C-alpha cells in the first residue's frame, strides 16, 4: 500500500485528512485500515505534501518532457538508512535519508529531482518521533529543491527492526556532456576532498554513548549537489566523484585504484581531520580514514584543472575546508599508499570487516 502524491496534475477533490490520536505507533498503523491512513495523512502527507489535495494513487507520475529538460540520461539510486541512535549531533535519520540519496545521485553528475520514502517502523515508536523525522525530511528536501513524491509505511513487531528503518530511492537527470567514472582516473590526476573527514562516523559512535566522551563533534550530513554543480561547472572534465560514506575515504580510494588500475598516493599531513576526531580515534584505537562521512566527496580531476577545482570547492560554503590530499600514480596499480606524518609510508587497504576497538 503506497501513500502517493500526484505531481503532474491536481484535478482531485480536496479530501479530509485523518489524524492520529494515540501517542505510539502500533501494529494497527500498518494494517492497511483507517489507523494506517490516519498515520499517513497526519504524519507523512502533512509533512511532504500539505498543500496538495490530489487523490492518492499507487505511484508517482512524472512527465518525461519535464525530465528531458535537465539532461540526456536518467540516474536512479536507492539507499537504506538504519542508523542508531535516530537522533545525533548534526542531524537525524531523516536528514540522512534525504541527503544520502541526493548525494548518491549528485556524485554521478545528476541533478537530483524526485525521491521516494519507505519507512519500516518498529511498534512502540512514539508518533511524535516519526512526525519530527518526517518534518526534518520534508525541510531537508525543500531546502535541496527535490520532491518526495511516493512512499510506503510498514509497521513490524517489536524486535523485528530497530525503532525505524528508512529507504529512499531517488531519480535525477545527468546533464549532457558529463561523464564521470570510477575507472577514469589517470596517472598525474589530483585527488581533492571538500573538507574535514570522519566527523559523521565519530559523531555517531560518540552518540551511542559507550564512552561517554564530551566532544563538540557533529555529523557533517549535508546535500552536496550544489557544491558538485559548482565544481562541474568550473571543471566539466572532472574524472570522478564519490561521497565517502561507509568505509570512509580509504575505501573510496581503494575502489578508484582498483577500477582504474592505478596507484594512489596520499599525504597524511594534507588530509584534513579535526583534532577532536583525531583524539577520539586515538582513544578508541580507530583510524579516521575509515570513518563514515555524510557530507564529503572525493574528487579526481586532471592535474591542469586542480587549482580551478580547488578554488571552485572553496568558494562554496560546503567546500571551505577543501584540500588536495594526494595524486594518482602509475606504480603499484590497485594500491593506495600513504606518506605518514612521521615520514614513513604505509599501505591503506580496504577494511576486512568493521573497525573494532583495540583492547590496549
Amino acid at each position: 500500500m503506497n501513500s502517493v502524491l500526484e505531481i503532474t496534475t491536481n484535478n482531485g477533490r480536496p479530501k479530509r485528512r485523518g489524524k492520529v490520536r494515540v501517542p505510539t505507533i502500533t501494529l494497527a498503523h500498518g494494517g492497511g485500515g483507517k489507523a494506517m491512513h490516519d498515520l499517513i495523512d497526519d504524519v507523512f502527507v502533512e509533512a511532504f505534501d500539505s498543500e496538495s489535495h490530489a487523490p492518492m494513487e499507487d505511484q508517482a507520475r512524472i512527465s518525461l518532457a519535464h525530465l528531458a529538460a535537465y539532461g540526456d540520461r536518467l540516474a536512479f539510486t536507492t539507499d537504506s538508512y538504519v542508523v542508531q541512535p535516530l537522533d545525533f549531533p548534526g542531524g537525524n535519520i531523516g536528514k540522512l535519508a534525504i541527503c544520502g540519496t541526493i548525494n548518491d545521485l549528485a556524485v554521478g553528475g545528476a541533478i537530483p529531482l524526485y525521491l521516494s520514502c519507505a519507512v519500516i517502523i518498529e511498534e512502540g515508536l512514539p508518533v511524535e518521533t516519526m512526525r519530527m523525522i518526517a518534518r526534518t525530511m520534508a525541510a531537508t528536501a525543500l531546502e535541496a529543491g527535490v520532491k518526495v513524491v511516493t512512499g510506503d509505511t510498514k509497521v513490524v513487531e517489536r524486535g523485528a527492526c530497530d525503532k525505524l528503518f528508512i529507504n529512499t530511492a531517488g531519480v535525477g537527470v545527468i546533464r549532457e556532456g558529463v561523464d564521470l567514472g570510477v575507472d577514469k582516473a589517470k596517472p598525474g590526476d589530483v585527488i581533492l576532498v571538500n573538507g574535514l573527514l570522519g566527523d559523521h562516523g565519530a559523531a555517531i559512535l560518540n552518540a551511542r554513548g559507550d564512552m561517554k566522551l564530551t566532544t563538540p563533534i557533529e555529523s557533517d550530513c549535508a546535500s552536496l549537489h550544489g557544491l558538485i554543480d559548482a565544481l562541474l561547472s568550473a571543471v566539466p572534465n572532472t574524472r570522478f566523484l564519490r561521497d565517502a560514506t561507509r568505509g570512509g575515504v580509504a575505501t573510496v580510494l581503494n575502489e578508484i585504484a582498483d577500477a582504474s588500475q592505478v596507484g594512489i598516493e596520499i599525504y597524511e599531513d594534507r588530509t584534513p581531520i579535526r583534532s577532536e576526531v583525531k583524539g577520539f580515534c586515538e582513544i578508541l584505537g580507530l583510524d579516521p580514514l575509515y570513518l563514515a562521512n555524510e557530507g564529503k566527496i572525493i574528487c579526481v580531476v586532471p592535474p591542469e584543472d586542480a587549482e580551478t577545482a580547488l578554488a571552485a570547492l572553496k568558494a562554496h560554503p560546503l567546500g571551505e575546508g577543501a584540500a588536495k590530499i594526494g595524486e594518482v600514480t602509475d606504480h603499484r596499480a590497485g594500491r593506495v599508499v600513504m606518506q605518514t606524518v612521521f615520514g614513513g609510508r604505509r599501505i591503506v587497504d580496504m577494511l576486512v570487516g568493521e573497525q573494532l576497538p583495540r583492547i590496549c
Partner: protein
Amino acid sequence: MKFVDEFRDPEKARFLLEEIRVLVPQIRNARNGASGRSSTSPIYIMEVCGGHTHAIFRYGVETMLPDGIELIHGPGCPVCVLPMGRVDDCVALAHMPGMIFTTFGDAMRVPGSKESLLQAKANGADVRMVYSPLDSLRIAQDNPDRQVVFFALGFETTMPSTAFTVLRAKAEGVKNFSLFCNHITIIPTIKAILDSPDLQLDGFLGPGHVSMVIGNSSYRFIADHYKKPLVIAGFEPLDILHGIWMVLKQIAEGRSEIENQYKRVVPEGGNAPALDAIGKVFELREFFEWRGLGSIDHSGVRIREDYGEFDAERRFSVPALKIADPKSCQCGEVLKGVIKPWDCKVFGRDCTPETPLGALMVSSEGACAAYYQYGDIEKIHNTKALVKEMA
C-alpha cells in the same frame, strides 16, 4: 593534538635515523663472526608488545629503517596468542541460556574451532562489546536476573582494571557477575623465547604499558643472564625510533642493560596500588597455553579461591578442550622471529584476515595481518622487496 604531535615530528625522526644509519654498519662490522653472526646478517630487534607492532605499521617506521636492521614482531598481542580451545569456551559460555557475554571489541573476530564470538552473536548469543570490565559489571547490575560474564584478556596492562572490578563486585555484593580469566604475563614468555635454540635476537623493545604496571626490575634477567639489551619504549613513532636507537647504542658500546625510554609514563617500581589489586585477586597458574607457542609455565593467572565466586570457570562448566593449532600454521616460528610471515606456507593463501587460520592473522596487532596489507596474493613472496621499494 597537544602532547601527541610532538611525538610524531618528522624532523626529530630524521635526526634519529641518521644516528641509526651510523650505528648499524658499526655494529655489524665489529661483530664479524663473533657469536656465530657475520657482518652481513641483520641486527634483529624484537618489539614484544602488539601496541608497538601496530604503531610501527601505522607510521611506516619499518620502511624508514636502513638495511641491516630488522624488527621481529613478538608475542605481545593478547588477542593473537589466545588458543582456539579458550575461544571455544567463550563461545560455549556465550550460548548458555540467559547469558550476557561481554568482551573487548578486537576479541570478537578470533576464530574458534567452530565459531568466533562475532558468529556466535549472529547465531543468537547475547554477546556485547564493552570498553572496560566496569561496563560489564554495570550490565550485570542492570540485569540482575541474568548471568553476565566478562572475557578478561590481556597482559598486566589490563589486569589491574579487571582486579579492581572484581574487588568492587565483591564489595557491592554482585551475584550474577563473573570473569572468564585469560590474563597472561609476559615475562615467562620472553624467557621461553630467549631459551629457544633457534633464537637470533640482538635486543628488545620492552612493552611500555605493561611496564607502567610492573616497573623495570622484572626484566633484569634478560640483561644479566642472557646479555641482551632491553629498552622500555612508548607507543608514539618517535618513542619507537628512540628506543631502537637506544638498543643499538647499547649493542655498539657492548652493554646489556634495562633502560627506560618511556620515563614520562613508566615509574621504576611500577604502580603499587595496581600490583596490590592484582596480587589480591589473581594467582599464577602452573602453566597456560599460548597459540603458536604452546604451553608455558607460570605464564597465566587465575582467580584466587577467596574470589572464586567471580570465576566463570568455577561457576559454569566449560568444555575446556585443548584444540591443536592447525598443523600448517607456523605462528610460533614467526613469533620467535625464526621465519618471516611471508615464509609461512599458508600466509595469504589459506590464511587471510577474512579467514584467519593462525593467531597472527587475527588482530591488527598481529605481525601477519600487518604484513598482509603490504602485497596482494601474487606478490606475497616479494613482500619484503615491496617494503624496501617503499622505503
